[in-house]
């Protein structure tokens, strides 16, 4: 009897092991995104008996540098939270064949704009590869308290870059803080004002990077702002190559009047600044041609080397659901990529007035972004553009190259990188 029981138990365990599916999810977080997803996955596991999701929280650098190498050699997690859709597109799993037509249509309806970001290269034009759980928008933040202390009127939403520069310098000079304006050291942030100055970004063949009058105009202005110290030199001149650098610490320490970054900083500012001073999101900042920002965002993708593609597709469907997205976004204070939630709004939990206002301002700016901005975000080789811009423009800022030389080199660098990738 005892022997029979033991054999049965072993057989059951073996059967269970055969059915059990473990999905590894490589996740990075700006705030609490991975924690929120870990909690949400309990419902998914309850729905799918035998499937467990293991969330491996990693630094963003691991997503940028380690993940592509793992995928290249056919290894790596089943899913990951990524931002480089173009670069990772060829490794992504198309969930559509594993979904019901009803689910696929709902996902298409809710996420059509961001789904396009992964439909590049050889990927299917109607494939479902990514569910963006954190739509981001570039935009400015201003230290309201410094403006009040300086007695300078803060430019209204829709003000120009020139107006913000003038006002920020006046505030800096009146209050004695170190920096008037700063812009994150990446081509992603540079691209938005460049497009507002009229940059087309793409040439006639549809490839980046076109150095036209609009691009040149903002590049000239940007270098001039560094020469007269309107822009914080420490951010762009403080590093070399395409290294990313932000100025969030300077803004948090009230040492910077106006900071051009993006909506992903909102949660961090709400947490780190607290009630130390008042801050606001600036809304769209305009150039002569437009007032656009750059969209972007992190999303959850599955990979095509996975053993259980059905389970991965089921998880993709789960994270796309309106109620699940609403729950996670409420905890993480992020903007929704889901069209229904964009329309209806998200009931954010425990956010301060500053954070709520900033989320509202950024959310309102997104629909006004230029189509070129979306095209650049979904461009297969956008990383070549984003890393080459800081490398070359910094050389012009510190005087290693003239601006003309820097722009010529920039155009060549992007062309070389794209040629290498092909």
């Amino acid at each position: 009897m005892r022997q029979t029981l033991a054999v049965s138990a072993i057989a059951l365990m073996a059967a269970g092991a055969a059915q059990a599916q473990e999905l590894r999810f490589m996740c990075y977080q700006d705030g609490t995104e991975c924690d929120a997803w870990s909690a949400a996955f309990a419902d998914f596991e309850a729905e799918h008996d035998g499937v467990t999701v293991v969330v491996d929280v990693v630094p963003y650098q691991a997503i940028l540098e380690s993940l592509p190498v793992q995928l290249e050699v056919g290894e790596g997690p089943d899913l990951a939270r990524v931002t480089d859709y173009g670069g990772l597109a060829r490794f992504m799993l198309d969930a559509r064949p594993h979904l019901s037509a009803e689910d696929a249509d709902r996902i298409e309806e809710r996420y059509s704009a961001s789904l396009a970001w992964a439909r590049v290269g050889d990927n299917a034009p109607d494939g479902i590869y990514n569910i963006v759980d954190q739509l981001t928008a570039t935009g400015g933040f201003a230290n309201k308290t410094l403006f009040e202390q300086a007695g300078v009127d803060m430019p209204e939403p829709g003000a120009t870059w020139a107006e913000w520069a003038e006002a920020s310098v006046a505030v800096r000079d009146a209050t004695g803080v170190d920096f008037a304006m700063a812009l994150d050291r990446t081509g992603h942030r540079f691209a938005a004002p460049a497009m507002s100055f009229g940059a087309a970004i793409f040439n006639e063949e549809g490839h980046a990077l076109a150095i036209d009058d609009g691009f040149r105009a903002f590049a000239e202005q940007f270098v001039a702002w560094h020469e007269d110290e309107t822009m914080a030199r420490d951010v762009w001149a403080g590093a070399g190559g395409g290294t990313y650098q932000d100025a969030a610490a300077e803004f948090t320490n009230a040492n910077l009047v106006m900071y051009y970054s993006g909506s992903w900083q909102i949660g961090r500012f709400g947490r780190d600044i607290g009630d130390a001073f008042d801050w606001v999101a600036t809304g769209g900042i305009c150039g002569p041609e437009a007032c656009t920002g750059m969209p972007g965002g992190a999303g959850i993708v599955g990979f095509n080397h996975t053993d259980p593609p059905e389970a991965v597709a089921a998880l993709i469907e789960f994270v796309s659901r309106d109620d699940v997205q609403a729950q996670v976004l409420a905890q993480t204070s992020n903007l929704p990529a889901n069209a229904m939630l964009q329309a209806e709004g998200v009931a954010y939990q425990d956010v301060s007035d500053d954070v709520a206002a900033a989320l509202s301002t950024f959310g309102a700016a997104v629909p006004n972004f230029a189509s070129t901005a979306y095209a650049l975000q979904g461009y297969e080789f956008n990383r070549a553009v984003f890393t080459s811009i800081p490398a070359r423009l910094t050389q012009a800022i510190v005087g290693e190259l003239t601006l003309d030389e820097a722009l010529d080199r920039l155009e060549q660098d992007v062309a070389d990188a794209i040629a290498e990738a092909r």
Partner: protein
Amino acid sequence: MAALLRALYEGAFNIFETPMRWLQYSLGAHRMAWVFLLPNLLIFGLFTYLPILLNVWYAGSSGDRILLGERDWVGTANFASLMDCESYLQPNSCRRDLFWRAVHNTGWFVVLQVGFMILFSLIAALILNRNIPLKGFFRAVFFYPVLLSPVVVALIWKWILQRNGVLNAGLDWAGMGTTNWLLDPSWAFFWIVFVSIWANMGFYVLILLAGLQAIPGDVYEAAEMDGTPAWRQLFRITLPLLTPTLLVVMVLSLIRAVQAFDEIYVLTGGGPGSATTLLIQYIYDVGFATRPRQFGLAAAASLVMAVVLMVLTLMQLAATRKRAEDG
């Protein structure tokens, strides 16, 4: 008990006796050396020579794929691209201007860092070799930075040199003007040389100190009896007898200087612009930090650097051999 241990010990070795006898019988005694060398050769082959061959393959191919079968063979195109210059002295005239800026920066860095480091290490070693108070303490002080991680060294100096850092706070307190040390290309280059010397010289001081202590004391006694002044003793006794040690120090520091990366990357990120970008960082940037990754170009640049290091090593071997023949 001892007998038991001895029996076990001998038994353990006897396990190999039969297969080794069979191998010797099969291969012949003169080939047995290869059997003993085989484990080492395998490890070297796998972890040293195979990566070198892979690197050569990458250098001769293009594309952003990692798997060799997915890469296009382009022969010497990557080397040609790196060497495409109107004048090697003018990086702006080169197709890969950043590579040549890195080469120039590395050249200057090596000359200045190695030159000053040997000079300061020698001075420190000469002082520490005398009977000064707290000699042991000062030896520890010089050696302490060597124990620190390069990243820690860089972070410490970053806090000292940044806009609101300790150095500027001190200068401000003293009523002197402040400078953005790491944002000015010339100052940034000065500081990477300085920090590198500070972090590494303790190691070379120790080697030179050992060299100084190996010089027989009776040579100095004889010189003093002859009334030889101290400066003459330095140039006629100390330095000539210290030359073999100085040669070792020079070669070691040269190779380490060419390979400099971590401290500088954390301290300046290669900036401002490309003012402190050295060869290793160029290779890292091209191969890993930028998108799409240009593995071929990075591998070609690393082979160029390997050739430079090989030349330096051969020069050291030649100098050592010449000295041995002369001596």
